[in-house]
């Protein structure tokens, strides 16, 4: 999620909000980085989720450095590093490989994709979704994604879910997460019915750590989601639909690939619709 840009979705307050609300608001660029860092620390101090500090650090440093250089060259200003930090730390957590280079490469690809894959001034893919999908697709013999490398106990999961839900709700993106989760569960039950597999096994993925990052940070990214609330819910539902199709075909990293396809498609459709409306408006005005 890009905290800088997300302010546009916030509501103007007529009276000063309480301090905790100001902290947990879209105007605070540090809230999401703080949350994801919190997840990292809780996960690592409890279970040692990081294979090594240097790899995560490398991912963060490369992401920030790439962002600084590219923004300076192409936007002619120094960017706030929060967005790149989120990308870097997501890569550091979600990418799994004993090698160092994929962490650097994934961060570089993620950030660069923001500057290359743009239409009408908007980048189409959530950076870490693009980077990780690209790495899984192009370097499958070297990398995997976070799947079982996290404590599977209940309490850290509940803490992260509650904290995440609270923050996402404050950031006015809870409907996206809720739509996706409800859709996922419904489709999981449907898969169980179709395949005859225990329903618990179909629900299992969403109880894992990969999904916590996926539903709180990737599908809610304001930069790469459509504008309308209804549209956002529909896109989240569509991601779940495509994921269902991919899962029926036993694609291990189905959620990444589903978002990879649905997210940009939805944005392009939104741009096309907006352009048509604008054109129609001009014609009507004329």
């Amino acid at each position: 999620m890009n905290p800088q840009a997300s302010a546009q979705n916030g509501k103007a307050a007529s009276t000063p909000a309480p301090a905790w609300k100001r902290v947990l608001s879209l105007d605070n660029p540090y809230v999401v980085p703080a949350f994801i860092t919190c997840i990292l620390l809780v996960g690592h101090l409890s279970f040692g989720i990081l294979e090594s500090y240097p790899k995560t650090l490398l991912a963060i440093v490369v992401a920030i450095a790439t962002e600084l250089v590219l923004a300076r060259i192409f936007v002619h200003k120094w960017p706030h590093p929060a967005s790149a930090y989120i990308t870097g730390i997501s890569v550091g957590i979600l990418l799994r490989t004993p090698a160092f280079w994929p962490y650097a490469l994934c961060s570089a690809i993620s950030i660069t994709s923001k500057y290359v894959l743009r239409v009408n001034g908007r980048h189409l893919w959530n950076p870490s979704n693009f980077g990780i999908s690209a790495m899984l697709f192009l370097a499958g013999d070297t990398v995997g994604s976070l799947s079982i490398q996290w404590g599977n106990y209940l309490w850290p999961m509940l803490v992260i879910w509650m904290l995440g839900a609270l923050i996402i709700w404050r950031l006015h993106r809870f409907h996206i997460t809720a739509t996706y989760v409800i859709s996922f569960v419904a489709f999981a039950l449907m898969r169980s019915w179709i395949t005859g597999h225990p329903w618990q096994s179909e629900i299992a993925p969403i109880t894992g750590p990969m999904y916590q990052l996926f539903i709180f940070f990737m599908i809610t990214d304001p930069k790469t989601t459509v504008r309308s609330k209804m549209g956002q819910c529909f896109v989240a539902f569509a991601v779940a639909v495509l994921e269902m199709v991919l899962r029926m075909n036993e694609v291990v990293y189905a959620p990444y690939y589903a978002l990879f396809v649905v997210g940009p498609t939805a944005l392009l459709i939104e741009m096309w619709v907006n352009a048509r409306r604008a054109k129609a408006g001009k014609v009507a005005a004329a």
Partner: protein
Amino acid sequence: MTRPGLAKAALVGFFIALLTVPFAVKKLSTPQLAAATEEADGGALRRYGFRFENVTRAAGVDFVHRAPTLDPKLAPIMPEVASMGAAVSIVDFDRDGWPDIYVTNSAEGSRNSLYRNLHDGTFKDVAGELGIADVNQPGTGVSMGAVWGDYDNDGYEDMLLLKWGRPELFHNDQGRGFTRVSEQANLPAWLNANTAVWFDYDGDGRLDLFIGGYFAETLDLWHLDTTRIMPDSFEYATNGGRKYLFHNLGGGRFEEVSAQLGIESRRWALAAGAADLRGTGRQDLFVANDYGISELYLNDGKRFREAGKETGVGFAPKSGMNVAFGDILNEGRYAIYVSNISEDGILIQGNNLWMPKDKVPGGALQYENLARDFGVELGGWSFGAQFGDFNNDGALDLYLTNGYISLDRTRSYWYDFSKVAGGNSTIIGDARNWPAFDGRSLAGYQTKRVWLNDGAGKFVDVAQQVGVTDTYDGRAVALADLWNRGVLDVVTANQNGPLLIYRNIASGDNAWIEFELEGVASNRSAIGAQVTLYWNGQRQMQDVAGGIGFSAQNDRRLHYGLGRKSEIEKAVIRWPSGKVQTLDKPRAGELHKVREPQ
């Protein structure tokens, strides 16, 4: 083109370049493979100095392992739950100077085999007549491995039979038979273990015994009250079997002392090895755990201290399935090889090659994982591995077996495995929640690895080129100079598959030397004795082990390749008793039998 246009073009070019990096990395790593495949025409002997020939049938060995059939409640995932039990150990049980082979079976009512070496290239199964074949009777559990050690110092190797069930200690009656002495030894009535190691942790001259539990010892896997038997986490599980450390009191009696000596863990142990990692004269204990981190128990002779985190080996949780020690750079220090799981595009844990770090402040023991740098990281669903110098060039090579469940070649269980494994413990911990295997494979039909060490930190896989072409579900690997020829042969035990004997056909260009040790003040098996050989300006250290690898034990005799034109300076033996013995200029090309000096 305008400046902004040029900048944009450069940016796109940069982006495309980034996307091509994985291909470039792959390309850069291809030359080694290309060089290796050149030898597919049979030039392995010329190029690598050896090749392996599968002589199993010619050797008169027709053993086929069968897996157990556990409680019907586990039927949907039986291939996964009952996926271990094929084990092999090398022992000269009758002291005739020729290594024999003991191999376990795991189906209820199946028989284990003890293949006596007939000295003519063949073996004969004598387990039945000696009383150690019919050990898998229903109600007693089934075999998971065997380790040999002379616990009463009578000169004959005794056998601990490890089971999911009732563990057994068999006393070797001078090579003429075996007597079951489990009760006298005070072994537990039931456990579910896959690893055990004989070692003399306190240096009192009597072999002690470590046993690492896998499933909780409270479970009778044939009569389950619950299906909640699976690990409570795939990376941090602590609901496995307990650990045992049996102190040898003499007179065939043992006392369980694990907790009072600092070994308390319920991780899912799959492999353990003991070696003196710090030059203290005491063997430390390394435990590789499935579903979690490894543990390193440092031994001060009286107590153990778990130092996995501080030494770096107990940090990243993986699926530890093997422990092997090897002085791979000939510098008098052990690397530790721990096998894990790697599957392209799904799970890349990578195997660990723990190398001791140089110049750590305070001289502390710390390791770093250099498996990728050394080229021994990816081995599929890896199980047993052993270091040994197959071409006698003076550098320890590495043999790795692998493959988990080979059923239907066209259908894979990987997706369902990864789906459930990422879930919460309340889901994965219950076998009922797992999708049925339904005849599918999981990391099956994998090719083995024979990694040749160039002596300078690079290993190259030549398995296919030297004749290791089987794709069975490998579990245990054991090394021995089976026919006293000065080369290391390989025996592998395969789950639901045949025992394989790979005879080493060496070019004979390189020299070798072997040592067979017998303790006097030390335990008679000399387990824990360390021999450092100095030759041609280099040195190589090896320990006599009482069980190493995965469900395996190599021959106790130590084998050293020397390369060409070798001049041996000396061999320094450090006995477990603390005595240090130096052999000046031992002759190459011989097996040296050394008895501990009084």
